[in-house]
């Protein structure tokens, strides 16, 4: 049986079909999750923000007019909510945030770095990238999207997205070449 189009699922959701809404979200969940993670990293707030994103998506569904892809619309909601939380948190805990975001393992003590697993190792390196590079990489790998799909979601030319991903990887290689990272990666 062919899969229903996003627009059909939106219409059914608007008629109160909760299963249609869940199917719609499951279809694009990885995009929203990658967008939130690219801004908040692996912080505790991700869970709360994701719930808020889907609640706002549901409540604002009637405002989705279909002139953009649903995935683009969902990405924008996810990004806006994550940026909002990130900005609030920055104001509340400026000092702590500075340490978490800016320092990275390059300047962290070796003992602390040694306890990091591969996942945190990558998260830390991604956290040091420009937000645009990080988002493009997360959409490419975490959400498994093609360059064309990422371009549509981020509303950028395909060439720009490729440049972001490739430059991001070059930057990650540079970050991971630091002695502290090399220790942690072993």
């Amino acid at each position: 049986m062919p899969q229903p189009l996003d627009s059909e699922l939106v219409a059914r959701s608007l008629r109160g079909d909760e299963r249609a809404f869940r199917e719609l979200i499951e279809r694009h969940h990885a995009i929203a999750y990658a967008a939130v993670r690219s801004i908040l990293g692996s912080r505790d707030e991700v869970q709360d923000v994701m719930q808020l994103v889907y609640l706002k998506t549901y409540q604002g569904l009637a405002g989705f007019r279909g002139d953009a892809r649903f995935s683009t619309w969902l990405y924008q909601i996810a990004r806006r909510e994550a940026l909002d939380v990130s900005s609030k948190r920055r104001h509340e805990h400026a000092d702590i945030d500075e340490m978490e975001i800016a320092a990275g393992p390059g300047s962290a003590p070796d003992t602390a770095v040694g306890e990091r697993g591969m996942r945190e190792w990558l998260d830390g390196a991604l956290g040091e990238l420009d937000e645009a590079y990080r988002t493009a990489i997360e959409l490419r790998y975490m959400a498994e999207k093609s360059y064309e799909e990422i371009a549509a979601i981020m509303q950028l030319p395909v060439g720009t997205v490729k440049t972001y991903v490739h430059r991001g990887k070059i930057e990650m290689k540079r970050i991971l070449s630091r002695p502290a990272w090399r220790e942690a990666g072993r």
Partner: protein
Amino acid sequence: MNPHTPENCERIEAMLPAFVEGGLAAGDEALVRAHVASCASCRESLATFSALEESLVSRRSEVPPAAAFIPALATAPAPSRARAQARPRLVAALRAITSVPGVSIILVVWSAMFLLRFRGTVGEIFTWTTLERLSAITHRISGALVGVSGGDPYTLAAMYVALALLVLGSTGAITLRFIRNS
């Protein structure tokens, strides 16, 4: 020509991410293969990019199921077509009021009302001081409203409300438009 100059290696390194993804054109791919075969430093870079690619590919498994995040929608306010459509209509009305033709129509209507009511005395206004002029204009606008309403208090009240809404709406919309454009 020495193919292992820092510039050459830098150029090759810039192509390695696309090479690892299999996204290079045939000519560039052959160039990278030839260079890497004879350059130990770039071979090491290629190994790092390959390991990085492998680690990044595994990130897909970090995405938890969507069900964990979808809230209980039974308690959430339902989306409403009517509510969503009401807003664009209001926005469209405000946009129409603040557009160039909208503002022009408002000015023409007001000028026409003013001239019809005070045909003979318009010239006097230009000889007064600013304060007198403002006071007189305000007075005469209210006089014009009384005149147009024909003395009926309900019509007059409705006209005052309409005028207040027009002024507040236009001012608010113009301010919003200004903020959005700046």
